[in-house]
């Protein structure tokens, strides 16, 4: 732990946490890139199984009443995603570029992007609660069979039929869970850190918390921040993978084809609009 965080001695002679070691940023960056290489290599050389085309043909024949294109993400949901992506990338670049030697006045842009992220997440919570199917993105014990099947497919076994996911594949839901946890911590700590800098929004008050609490706040913010380095690398990587491009296109254009719908989703768990 001593090497993962920085300590200092306060004016009162106490050891206080200051922030994480910036080596953790490099660890997250290298770890994310190694994961990318490892997964890419595995997918290239493994016996990863796709669903048999005949299975999807049969499903298409059974459900001819479905439209050719099915809405996966409405305009508002897509806007939220891209606003959040913009703010998250701005936050990461403003936080970590100075650490790698690109010097600029980053604090202003960082907290501005943080406010944008916070506002977009608050909007998303309301939107998801009252407009979208709130529970469709969460994971729970009921998803274990689906997880098992996905793992078996990844290891080259043929697993026909259900269980298939509803609107969001298991990978989406697990990623969302990780982002929710890291995001809530990074936003919560980021908001109170606004009291340490001059923003014009709140009256600066460095004595809002005791030194120990501030130290934990900075360390938590840093840990979640470097965590997002890995998460964002993984997200962009999967978004660009050939077999996932249909998901990425849906986040741009909003729709997926009927065949993609039937191949990747359980129509009984996610009932498409007709």
């Amino acid at each position, binding site marked *: 732990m001593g090497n993962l965080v920085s300590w200092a001695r306060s004016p009162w002679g106490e050891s206080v946490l200051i922030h994480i070691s910036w080596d953790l940023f490099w660890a997250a960056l290298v770890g994310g890139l190694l994961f990318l290489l490892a997964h890419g290599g595995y997918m290239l050389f493994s016996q990863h199984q796709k669903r048999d085309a005949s299975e999807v043909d049969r499903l298409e024949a059974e459900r001819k009443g479905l439209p050719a294109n099915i809405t996966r993400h409405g305009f508002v949901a897509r806007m939220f995603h891209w606003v959040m992506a913009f703010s998250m990338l701005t936050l990461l670049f403003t936080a970590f570029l100075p650490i790698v030697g690109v010097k600029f006045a980053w604090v202003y842009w960082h907290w501005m992007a943080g406010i944008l992220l916070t506002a977009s997440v608050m909007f998303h919570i309301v939107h998801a609660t009252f407009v979208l199917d709130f529970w469709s993105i969460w994971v729970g014990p009921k998803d274990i069979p689906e997880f098992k099947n996905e793992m078996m497919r990844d290891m080259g076994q043929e697993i026909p039929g259900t269980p298939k996911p509803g609107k969001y594949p298991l990978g989406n839901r697990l990623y969302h869970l990780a982002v929710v946890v890291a995001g809530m911590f990074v936003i919560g700590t980021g908001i109170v850190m606004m009291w340490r800098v001059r923003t014009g929004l709140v009256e600066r008050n460095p*004595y809002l918390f005791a030194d120990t609490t501030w130290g934990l706040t900075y360390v938590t913010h840093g840990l979640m921040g470097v965590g997002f380095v890995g998460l964002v690398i993984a997200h962009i990587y999967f978004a660009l993978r050939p077999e996932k491009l249909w998901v990425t296109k849906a986040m741009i254009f909003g729709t997926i084809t009927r065949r993609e719908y039937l191949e990747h989703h359980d129509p009984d768990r996610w009932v498409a609009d007709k």
Partner: protein
Amino acid sequence: MPPIRDVMPAFELFQPANVGDALGILDRHGADAWVMAGGMDTFDWLKDRIKKPKVVVDLGNISELRGIKDAAGGLEIGALTTLTTVANDPLVKERFPLLAAAALIVASPQIRNQATVGGNVSQDARCWYYRAGWPCYRAGGNICYADTPTSINREHAIFNADRCVAVNPSDTAPALIALDAEFVIKRGSAERVVPAREFFVGPGIDITKLTVLQPGDLLTAIRIPATWAGKEHYFEKVRDRQVWDFALVNIAASLNMSGTTISDVRMVVNGVSAEPYRLDAVEAAIKGKPRDKATAEMAAELAVQGAVPLRHNAYKIPLVKALVKRAIRGEAEWATS
């Protein structure tokens, strides 16, 4: 444990005789090396044991870093030239009395005999919270002890504070910016020339440094072009103790006059932000204006736009205004108009 005063920590001392050797040592030891010129900043840090470098590189034996020479109507001043030499040099006094005035008013005669012009522009912040070794932003921590509701921050920044509110304490820095000087920095076999204004950095860019100097860098000379030689200059410093003190605020100005009209101007104040604060808006506004009371009044108002005082330093706002007015009217002892 409180700082141990007047007891030097152990370090390896190098006293190179030439620039090449000094650069070699700095390259070899990187961030472990501490560059010492006159020692006026260094010894505080070391004796208080706030900074504990493994290696100290004493430049005192490098004669090639001393002296002032003509450079196409301008001057090249070795970084190790003492402030006394700068203040008394006939060429400096003739061409750039602004710089001579600034150097002459630094600290005390004893200090000026030892302190160097390179050290004066490169010295660290004098914020006492920082110099006491507290883990503030500038020391790599996450708080500014000088910017709290109960801080003693009479001498701190009113402009461009970004978490840290320390100010640049140099007297020669604003003068050199007002003269469009350039700083020659060597590193290994490479040399780069940095405009004086860009030599200094604010906390938004790098909260732990006041200058662009990095480990391995050596400031070797300061070049002043002929541009402002023989033009009208102004320097004034306001301090608590007239015999020996850092500036609460100082101002340096170079003016090129066409009759009674200001055709070009440089105006810089220091002691108000972490980097010498060039009054760009004032310069733009008074170009082409007569050097009179109305221009001075207008410039003074413009100079303090954006100032954000702390609890105890709001007095710096009228002080800056007064100095700007006096600079334009040329009212100080050091005015050359």
